[in-house]
C-alpha cells in the first residue's frame, strides 16, 4: 500500500514537474561545460578594483587609469575614478583608446616625469607589451604597479548577461506560446503567429512614424502598440470564426492567415525596415525594473494570469472540455464556439504583443520578423507536455518547454556548436519530448497497435 502510494506520488511528480527536472539538469550541464576564469568588467569591476587598490597600496597613491574604448570600459573607468577619489587616492588621468593611442598618451605622461604609483586597467590592457615591459621612453612608469580586477571562476552560462540574453530570446516565443497552448488544448493549431509578429511590428512602427516619428510621444507609442495588438486579435478572431462557423480545419485556415499576414506586413512596410521611432520606444523591450527586463516581467505576469485562468476559472475548464470532447462539452452547455473564438483571438493578440516587443527590442519594424517563429512556439508547447490531440496540457508546462528549448540553443551557442548541428539537436529534442510524453501516458510500456 505504502509502496503503491509512494510510486503514485512519484508518477504524479514526474508527470507535473518532469520537465523542470530536465531544465535544471540542462542548466547544470551547461554550467559545468562553460565554467572558466572570468574577467570582471563594467561598474562591478570598477568597484572591485578600487577596493583592491585602496586596501593594497598606501593612501594618497597616484593612480593612472588605462582603459579601452567600449561602453563597458568607460563605465569601468568612471566608477573606478569615483571610488578612488572618495577613498583618498588621486586619479592622475584616465587614458582611453586603442593600443597605439594609449602608448602615445603614456609616453607624453612619462616625458612630463609624472610619478605614477599604480596603473589600473583591465586584463587586456595589462597584457600590452609596453605596459608589461616598459621601453626606455616609458622608464618613469616602470616602477608603477599594474593592477587589474581579480579574475574569478564562473560559468559563461550563469553570467548575468547570458541569463538576460536567454530571457530576451525566450520572451516573445513564450508569450505567444500561452495563446498557442489554449489553441492546441482545444485540439486546434495556429500557424499564423510568426507572420503576425511581423505584421504587428510593422503596424506599430508605421503608426509611430505617422504619429511623429522620432518625436512621437509616449501616448502615441502606447496607442500604436495597442492598435497593432487589437488588429492581430481581429485576425485571430477571423481565423477562429472560419474554424467555428464554417468548420474549416484550423491547419488550413491559419496556413492561409500566415500568408495573408506576412504579405500585408511586406505591403505596409513597402519591403523596408521602419526605424523612425523614438529612442524611448525601446523601454518596453530593453528596459529594466529591479534588474529584471521589462518583457520578462510582462511574460511572468501573463503566465500567472493564464495559469489562474486555466485552473480556477470557468473559461479554463471550458477550454479543456472543448479539447477533450467537443460534443460532450456542447451537450453539457459549454458555449463551444465562443470558447474557440476566444482562444484564437487570444492567440492572435498575444502574437501581436510579441510583435510589439520584438519591434521595441530591435527598435524597428521589419516585415521579415518572426520567420518560422510559429514552429518554435509550437515546439515549446509540445515540449511543455501539451498533447496535440487536445484536452490535456498545462500553461506552466509551456513556459518550461520554451525555456528548455532556449537553454539548449544558448548552451550550444556557448559551446560553439555549429548552427546546422544545432538544428539537428533541437529537432531530436522535440522528438524525444513527444516520445517521453507518450511513454509516460502509456505507463512506460510500448503502445500496442
Amino acid at each position, binding site marked *: 500500500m505504502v509502496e*503503491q502510494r509512494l510510486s503514485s506520488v512519484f508518477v504524479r511528480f514526474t508527470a507535473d514537474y518532469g520537465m523542470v527536472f530536465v531544465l535544471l539538469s540542462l542548466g547544470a550541464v551547461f554550467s559545468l561545460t562553460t565554467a572558466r576564469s572570468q574577467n570582471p568588467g563594467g561598474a562591478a569591476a570598477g568597484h572591485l578594483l578600487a577596493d583592491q587598490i585602496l586596501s593594497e597600496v598606501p593612501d594618497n597613491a597616484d593612480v593612472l587609469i588605462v582603459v579601452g574604448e567600449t561602453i563597458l570600459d568607460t563605465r569601468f573607468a568612471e566608477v573606478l575614478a569615483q571610488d578612488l577619489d572618495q577613498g583618498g587616492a588621486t586619479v592622475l588621468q584616465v587614458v582611453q583608446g586603442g593600443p597605439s593611442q594609449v602608448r602615445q598618451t603614456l609616453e607624453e605622461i612619462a616625458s612630463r616625469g609624472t610619478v605614477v604609483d599604480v596603473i589600473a586597467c583591465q586584463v587586456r590592457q595589462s597584457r600590452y607589451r609596453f605596459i608589461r615591459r616598459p621601453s626606455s621612453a616609458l622608464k618613469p612608469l616602470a616602477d608603477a604597479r599594474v593592477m587589474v580586477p581579480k579574475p574569478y571562476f564562473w560559468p559563461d552560462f550563469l553570467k548575468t548577461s547570458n541569463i538576460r540574453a536567454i530571457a530576451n530570446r525566450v520572451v516573445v516565443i513564450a508569450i505567444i506560446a500561452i495563446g498557442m497552448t489554449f489553441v492546441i488544448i482545444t485540439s486546434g493549431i495556429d500557424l499564423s503567429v510568426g507572420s503576425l509578429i511581423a505584421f504587428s511590428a510593422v503596424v506599430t512602427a508605421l503608426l509611430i512614424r505617422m504619429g511623429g516619428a522620432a518625436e512621437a510621444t509616449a501616448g502615441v507609442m502606447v496607442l500604436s502598440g495597442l492598435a497593432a495588438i487589437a488588429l492581430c486579435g481581429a485576425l485571430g478572431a477571423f481565423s477562429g470564426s472560419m474554424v467555428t462557423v464554417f468548420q474549416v480545419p484550423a491547419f488550413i485556415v491559419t496556413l492561409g492567415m500566415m500568408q495573408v499576414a506576412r504579405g500585408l506586413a511586406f505591403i505596409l512596410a513597402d519591403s523596408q525596415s521602419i526605424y523612425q521611432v523614438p529612442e524611448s520606444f525601446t523601454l518596453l523591450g530593453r528596459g529594466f525594473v529591479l534588474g529584471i527586463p521589462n518583457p520578462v516581467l510582462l511574460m511572468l505576469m501573463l503566465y500567472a494570469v493564464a495559469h489562474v485562468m486555466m485552473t*480556477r*476559472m*470557468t*473559461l479554463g*475548464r*471550458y477550454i*479543456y*472540455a472543448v479539447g*477533450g*470532447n467537443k*460534443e*460532450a*462539452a*456542447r*451537450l*453539457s*452547455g*459549454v*458555449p463551444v464556439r465562443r470558447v474557440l473564438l476566444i482562444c484564437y483571438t487570444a492567440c492572435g493578440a498575444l502574437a501581436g504583443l510579441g510583435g510589439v516587443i520584438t519591434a521595441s527590442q530591435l527598435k524597428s519594424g521589419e516585415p521579415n520578423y518572426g520567420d518560422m517563429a510559429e514552429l518554435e512556439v509550437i515546439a515549446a508547447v509540445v515540449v511543455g507536455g501539451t498533447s496535440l490531440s487536445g*484536452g*490535456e496540457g498545462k500553461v506552466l508546462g509551456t513556459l518550461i518547454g520554451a525555456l528548455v528549448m532556449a537553454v539548449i540553443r544558448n548552451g550550444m551557442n556557448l559551446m560553439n556548436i555549429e548552427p546546422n548541428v544545432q538544428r539537428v539537436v533541437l529537432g531530436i529534442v522535440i522528438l524525444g519530448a513527444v516520445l517521453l510524453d507518450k511513454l509516460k501516458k502509456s505507463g512506460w510500456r510500448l503502445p500496442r497497435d
Partner: protein
Amino acid sequence: MVASPSPIPLLSMRGIDKSFPGVHALRKVDLQLHAGEVLALLGENGAGKSTLIKVLSGAHLPDGGSIRIQGEDPQITSPVDAQRCGVAVIYQEFNLVPALCARENIFLGQERTRVGFVHHGNEQRSAQELFERMGVTIDPEAPCRTLSIAQQQVVEIAKALALSARIIVMDEPSATLTLKEVERLFAVVRELKSQGIGIIYISHRLEEIFEIADRVTVLRDGLHMGTHPIADLTRKGLIEMMVGRKLEEDFPKRRCKPGGERLVVEGICRDGFVDNVSFSVHASEVLAVTGLVGAGRTETARLIAGADPCDAGTIKLDGLTLAVRSPREAIRAGIGLLTEDRKAHGLVLVHSVRHNFGLPNLSWLSRLHWINARRERDEFARYVDSLQIKIPHQDQLAKNLSGGNQQKVVLAKWLARQCDVIIFDEPTRGIDVGAKYEIYLLINQLAAEGKAIIMISSELPEVLGMADRILVMHGGRISGEITDVSNANQQDIMQLAIG
C-alpha cells in the same frame, strides 16, 4: 437443444488468475466450451468477463492457470497467436474500416493474392460463400459505412470465419440491434453452432440468454460462481447468482401520480429524421419513448435538448415558449439530456470525474467566472455517496471507470443541475442488473420531486415496467400511444413500432 459433450472440450480454461495494480480481476476462474455449443458468460460490470476474454484472445497474459484448445496447450501470448488457434472475438465496437467494402474488410491482413495482386474474384466468391453459410445476403462490394450495424456485425463474423475460427466470442452483440435484427443474429448463431463452432455469448439481456444459450457461466467479483445448463436455471436464480443478493422485483414501484402538464412539444420537425412530432409530459410522469433503431427517438430528444436545430414546431415548458438554439440554452431553460452514448457524448473521458461532474454545473458552482473548487468537491462528494459511485478519488479519469460507474457520473452531473425536464436516452444500456435497479430508483425519485421524465428505451420490459405512458415511434413519427401501461404487453408495442 443441448449439445452432447464430446470427450475433449473445444476450449478449457483452468484456474485463470490475473491481477492488475490494485485489482484482483480474476481468481482461479474455470471455463469450458464444447464444439457446437453456445456458452453464455454472465456477470455484472467489473465481474471479470472482459478480462477473461482478453486472456483468451491474447491481449492479457494470465498470472496463472492454463488454456487448452482441443486438449493442446497453444501458448497464447499475443492476439496473433489466439487468431492462429482459431479464437475470434467480436467486440461491441467493430474493427471494420468504414471506407473499405465488406470483402476487403473480411480479408484485411490475409488478402488472397495471385503473383502479388489481390485476387478479387477469389475473394468475392469466398465472401459470398461465407455469407451463404450464415444464411444472409450482403453485397461484398458495398462499403462498410453504408451497411447497417447488423450487417456490419455479420461482416465481422465472416471475417472470423475466413480466419477459420473455431471459437467465436461475441461481446454484447445485441446491444445496438433491433428486435428483428436480434432474431436474424440468433439464426446466424444457430447456423454456426450446427457447423461445430463454439460460441461464448456475453450479454446483459437475460431474455436472450434463455433463448440462445445452452449453458451459463457466471462470474462475480473475479470469482467463478458456477456453470449450469440453462434448463436448470430460472431468471430470478440467475440474477441472484450474478448480484449475490435476492432481488425482490425487477422494477421498483412508484408511489406518485402524474400532475399537470409541464413540457409540451408541438409539431417539431427535422428534415429526414423527425416528422411533425407532438406530445406532452406531465409533472411526476415517466414518459417512455420506444421504437426500433432509427425511428427518430434520439433525434427527437436532441431537438428538445437543443442539440440539433428544429426546422419547425414549438417547445413549451410550464406554459412558456422556449427558443432553444443550443444545449446551453436548453439547460438554462431547465431541460437536461442524458445521452445514449456515454463515451462519445456524455463524458470527457480524458478528464477527471469531478471536472466532468462540474461541466454543466459551473454556472452555479462559480461566481464571476471563478470556480468555487471546494463547493464543487463537496457537491460531487455528496453525489458519489448517494449514488454509490465507486472511484478511488475525485481526480480519477473518467475513462478508467466501468460502464455503470461512468453512467452514474453522468447521472450525478445532471442531477446536480436540477433540471425540470430530464431526458434519459437508453439509461441502462450496457449496465449490470444491480446498477440498473439503482437507476430505476433514481428515476422514480426524480419523478416524485415533480420533474417531467422522458425515458427512451429499446428494452421493452424496462419500458413496460417503468413508464406511466408509452409513446411508440416509427419512421420519425409517433405511431402510437399506450396510456394503459399495466394492461399492455410487448406484442402491442412491437405492432406499433413496426408501423
